[in-house]
């Protein structure tokens, strides 16, 4: 009976299937360069796998459809047709069976997994079919390493992107992240990192994004990367983190909008802490140093504006709390030993400015005087050491009585001086 229905559907939908496959083939052309590395299976030939989504949704479009796992948990095999059709894959006309390649035939081959997570960990491999590059990048991530260590709850493709309701994140023509996506990203990460999200929400960046939709501020991925997310607790991440912050904070155009200084990196690098971190990064990028990076003072996820009355670092007491993390005995004068990202001037850090000014004149003054005296001495010695040249000059010019005088006394003190050297 079921067979009968099924075979009838095959004949009825043959044209439909062909149409869908043709559509897919066309979409591939427009999609080239988006995020595909391998051409998806889209050969426009009839195969047992070429089944239209309507066929699948006949059963899988019915809410409540489940199948049991080996541990008794039920795997939901219902797919909301609206979710799928509105997803990037649905919009582009992909067929269920392009991902679910093993279930094209009906009856489906037997499938079993020990539990729901095992099923997800198995089924998400389908993403590789088209997104091999992203999959490969993800293999380098802290998530993949955690998975290899047996932490099955670690994020896989479908945990962030969902399986069936995959949203487009980039503008298809410009490749820029969509404005909405800026907001989605922290929400996505928050599914597992909710405590960090709470902090981020409070931060100068997070609040601007969540409350005002400001796309200038960094989301999780701007610091942590996408797919190949690094372990942020290792020394190498810490050492290069100032470069992450300065990507935006040395961007004149972006900082000008908010009246922020772009001297933050060079003033940091010029300071004892920044010099150390910079050299560590260049010379021993995996070594640990106790010198602070940006986030040790500005906080890691709950970064506040520096004029924030409660936590802002322009308030000396707030900065002192940060200093005391490493310098527990620090007193209230101590924060001033950090120049607060200012280049010394009369207005900011005048003592340092005056010292710099002093040496700006003192060094050339002293060294210049020495150079002049040495040059005068050299000049004099050269003239007394080569009296013949001088004689010639004298005969030519027939002037300069004083020179003539010394020429006339070859055994004078000066010549003996010369003979010593």
């Amino acid at each position: 009976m079921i067979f009968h229905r099924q075979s009838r559907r095959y004949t009825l939908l043959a044209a439909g299937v062909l149409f869908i496959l043709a559509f897919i083939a066309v979409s591939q052309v427009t999609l080239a360069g988006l995020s595909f590395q391998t051409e998806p299976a889209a050969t426009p030939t009839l195969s047992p796998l070429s089944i239209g989504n309507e066929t699948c949704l006949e059963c899988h479009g019915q809410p409540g459809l489940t199948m049991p796992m080996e541990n008794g948990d039920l795997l939901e095999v219902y797919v909301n047709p609206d979710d799928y059709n509105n997803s990037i894959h649905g919009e582009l006309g992909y067929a269920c069976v392009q991902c679910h390649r093993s279930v094209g035939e009906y009856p489906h081959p037997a499938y079993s997994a020990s539990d729901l997570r095992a099923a997800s960990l198995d089924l998400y491999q389908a993403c590789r079919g088209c997104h091999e590059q992203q999959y490969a990048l993800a293999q380098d991530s802290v998530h993949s390493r955690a998975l290899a260590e047996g932490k099955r709850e670690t994020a896989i493709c479908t945990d962030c992107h969902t399986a069936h309701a995959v949203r487009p994140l980039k503008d298809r023509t410009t490749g820029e992240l969509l404005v909405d996506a800026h907001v989605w990203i922290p929400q996505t990460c928050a599914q597992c990192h909710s405590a960090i999200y709470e902090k981020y929400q409070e931060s100068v960046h997070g609040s601007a994004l969540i409350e005002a939709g400001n796309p200038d501020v960094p989301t999780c991925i701007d610091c942590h990367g996408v797919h190949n997310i690094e372990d942020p607790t290792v020394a190498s991440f810490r050492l290069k983190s100032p470069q992450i912050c300065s990507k935006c904070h040395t961007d004149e155009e972006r900082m000008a909008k908010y009246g922020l200084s772009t001297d933050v990196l060079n003033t940091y690098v010029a300071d004892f802490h920044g010099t150390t971190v910079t050299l560590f990064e260049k010379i021993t990028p995996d070594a640990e140093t106790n010198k602070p990076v940006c986030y040790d003072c500005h906080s890691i996820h709950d970064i506040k504006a520096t004029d924030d009355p409660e936590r802002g670092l322009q308030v000396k007491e707030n900065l002192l709390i940060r200093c005391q993390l490493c310098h527990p005995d620090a007193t209230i004068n101590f924060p001033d030993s950090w120049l607060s990202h200012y280049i010394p001037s009369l207005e900011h850090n005048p003592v340092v400015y005056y010292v710099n000014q002093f040496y700006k004149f003192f060094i050339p003054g002293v060294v210049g005087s020495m150079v002049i005296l040495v040059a005068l001495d050299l000049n004099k010695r050269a003239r007394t050491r080569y009296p013949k040249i001088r004689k010639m000059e004298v005969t030519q010019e027939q002037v300069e009585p004083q020179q003539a005088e010394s020429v006339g006394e070859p055994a004078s003190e000066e010549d003996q001086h010369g003979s010593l050297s």
Partner: protein
Amino acid sequence: MAASANPAPAPSSDEGSETYTRFDLSQRLEHLIMLVSFTILALTGLPQMFATSTIGEWMIRSFGGIEMTRQIHHIAAIVLMLVSVFHIVAVLYRIIVLRSPLTMLPLLEDFKHLLHDLAYYFNLRKRKAYYGRYSYIEKVEYLAVVWGTLVMAITGFMMWNPVATASIFPGQFIPASKAAHGGEAVLAVLSIVIWHFYHVHIKHFNKSMFTGKLTRQEMEHEHPAELNLIESGSAPAIPKPEEIRRRQRIFLPPAVILTISLLFGIYKYVTFEETSITTIPPRETVAVFVPITPTPRPTPIPTPTPIPGEAAVSPNSWEGNYRDLFRNRCGTCHGFTAVGGLSLADYQSALQGGDSGPGIVSGDPEASTVVTVQSAGNHPGQLTLDELEQVIEWIAAGAAEK
């Protein structure tokens, strides 16, 4: 480097070889140790000042990284401070015990000599000034070293012990110290290269700091006034040995106390604070993995709560075995979706059956669609032969629910 005072001004000349002792062994050793520590300080310090330059980075890398560079710099600084302590005590010994004249003090005469030499350079005079034991050239250098060492020691202390410094002085003194330390370093190195190298190595290689001696000819040219003083016999005489011993007895106790105090000062200088040596800034403090409770999967099938007091479930019954068997094998189609009208999700639905008739007919396997369809084979979700036999037996035996 040179002493500010010397025992007798250049002890009497050795008549045979006509050399004049200029520096005694301790002064030469002082110079040597200072020469080495100064060079190391410059080589490890300037790259720190210009750490972002290619050459600076290369040098720091060669020393084994920035921490190692700083270690070497600190050790050389300690050596230089020790030499300085020795020098202070030695100078006091010469002044107090040997009553040497303060030949290193700058005098009005030195300015006259400078003007005299300038006049000579511009051919207004026939010869250079007659220098005494130390010319203005040497005095400038000595005083520069004293001044420089003092500035470097003070600013170095502030950078070495920033927390202690800021507990007394404004915090800005620490970066100001760094600025002064760097400026002074550049000044010192340039002075050495220009002034010292020129006057001591280029103009005439004066080896007296290593041999301790000057020849008569060198004396004539470089220290004619001193030579004159020696030869006229008016150089200050060396005190009598018993007089020296008497003064030594007076000098020794305060000298020991001074030395110990200065050494203790160096010890405190180096070990004053350690707050930043081992602490590592804390990382993210909140837990990293805190999943939000996931939205429940929308189709949890309510498992019937067993009613207490009822008879135990038989393993050969719907609840004991066949409900799970049908759910696993047939549930995908014959669960809630009830393909063909047949649902095997619960016992009543199974009895009721679907479009093709009752699913299970108690005691009559032949009339049960489940058996007929499965017996035909090739049904999606096909039971194994063993399972089918069990089902047939169970139905034949009355298809017990519990």
